């Protein structure tokens, strides 16, 4: 039987751009170019490698996001994923992590899955909680923050490099995994891949399709509320000296003045 892999990918504002908040204190997506979160490219890459090692597998990429999030799906399809699911609904604007996990979980169940692959964190929200939330909601094992992952004989195994130890993990499928940027560079889409992606199916779903009430999601349904967002004042210009033999001494002088030595 075919191994059904669902990769969760997020469309995010470019981190190297000038990111801002909109008036309703949600992330302003209009002024900054969006793209497939770089950390989710690692998830797509690992899914592709798992597929290559399997007899028979199919990769669906899934996103919850605005119309433009289609770009993120196209990128993942051009890397080699087979098909895509886009959950899009005006009522989703302002949904927080708990709400997003609800929508993703329903979409994953509807799609059918043996393995869910996520990135380690989104590059805009950087919470890194979605994979754990999904495992809880789907009631399947959580095998997260892996720097190495493989699937064989109905089991997923991987290495999690934590703060105090490196752990070897194992779980039976179905399961939710997340992979770090240590898992291996993501491939670039080939020209052939880009052309092929144009013909791959993208299914569009809204809240009705997933049996979710509008008041469970969106800004009003969110479990958390941003009350204030202030741009951090630019750091006041510091002292900059050129080293002409005395740089180390001058720096020591500064550190002593600040009571660090």
């Amino acid at each position: 039987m075919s191994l059904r892999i669902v990769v969760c990918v997020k469309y995010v504002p470019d981190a190297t751009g000038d990111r801002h908040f909109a008036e309703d204190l949600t992330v302003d997506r209009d002024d900054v170019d969006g793209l497939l979160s770089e950390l989710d490219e690692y998830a797509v890459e690992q899914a592709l490698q798992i597929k290559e090692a399997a007899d028979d597998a199919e990769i669906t990429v899934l996103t919850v996001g605005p119309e433009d999030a289609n770009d993120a799906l196209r990128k993942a399809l051009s890397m080699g994923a087979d098909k895509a699911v886009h959950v899009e609904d005006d009522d989703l604007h302002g949904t927080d992590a708990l709400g997003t996990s609800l929508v993703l979980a329903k979409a994953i169940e509807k799609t059918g899955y043996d393995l869910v692959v996520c990135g380690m964190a989104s590059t805009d929200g950087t919470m890194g909680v979605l994979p754990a939330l999904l495992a809880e909601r789907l009631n399947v094992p959580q095998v997260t923050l892996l720097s190495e992952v493989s699937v064989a004989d109905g089991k997923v195994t991987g290495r999690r490099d934590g703060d105090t130890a490196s752990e070897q993990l194992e779980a039976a499928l179905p399961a939710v995994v997340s992979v770090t940027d240590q898992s291996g560079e993501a491939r670039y889409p080939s020209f052939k891949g880009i052309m092929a992606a144009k013909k791959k199916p993208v299914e569009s779903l809204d809240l009705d399709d997933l049996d979710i009430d509008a008041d469970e999601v969106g800004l009003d349904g969110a479990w958390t509320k941003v009350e204030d967002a202030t741009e951090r004042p630019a750091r006041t210009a510091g002292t900059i000296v050129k080293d002409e033999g005395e740089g180390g001494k001058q720096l020591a002088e500064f550190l002593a003045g600040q009571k660090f030595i």
Partner: protein
Amino acid sequence: MAEVLVYVDHVDGAVRKPTLELLTLARRIGEPVAVHLGPNAEEAAKVLAEHGAVKVLAADVPEFAEYLVAPKVDALQAAYDAVSPAAVLLPSSAEGKEIGARLAVRIGSGIITDAVDLEAGDEGPVATQSVFAASYTTKSRVSKGTPVITVKPNSAAPEAAPAAGTVEPLAVTVADSSKGTKIVSRTPRESTGRPELTEAAIVVSGGRGVNGAENFPVIEALADSLGAAVGASRAAVDAGWYPHTNQVGQTGKSVSPQLYIAAGISGAIQHRAGMQTSKTIVAINKDAEAPIFDLVDYGVVGDLFDVVPALTEEVKTRKG
């Protein structure tokens, strides 16, 4: 007064500093009740009591070490059911965030991660966060359920506030569904003897400019003269010059020390994301145009192989 659950981060009963910071923040909201999972609760309780824990709920079952994360969620949920707290605070470690997230789903609550400050508010605790690579500061609160909040290290100075700290056993039944992810083996990290990166008061980091693993001792020598932790940019880590556990930035550790010294680091946005909230920032870089200089309190344009050893010598002399 309302009780606040504080999840204890410890190594075999040795309580880590971020937990003491959590206790300090918890006292702004209510009475801290610590939850200690794993061995040596009695030993931990002494330190927890000194910092304000009125009670220490303790559980130690083998499943905590045998399976990933989920058994600890079962235990924290048991503590939640026993106490009905006003809030649940956890350290913003990878595990702390995952435990908090799963608890939030179970108790139908919102979660805020990576808070850098916490105050009591009319409608519940208000968390300060630093977002978009620290270019914005936000204030948020949980609007549904009992607030679950994870807090970054170095967000508050631990304060002594002696309390009873009575240890009470917490009964935990680990559900079968929480035994899904087996920890097959565990290789503890070797200690370097230096302070923990996220907890250190001073961090000295090296980047691509260090130009080889064989040169990192230059960075380490400065760090040791200052009693600092050693960090590295992703470029240095990807080149294999320094371990990934020392990486500072978006996909490494996020640090907020009193003093951050960057040597041979350009200051890319993903690096800044992990260090921009440091109190004082110093950089040594031979390129006067490097973006890191936009952040510094003091910068030296020069070759790190001249400046860093000279600084190290000067620090040693001054410290006697």
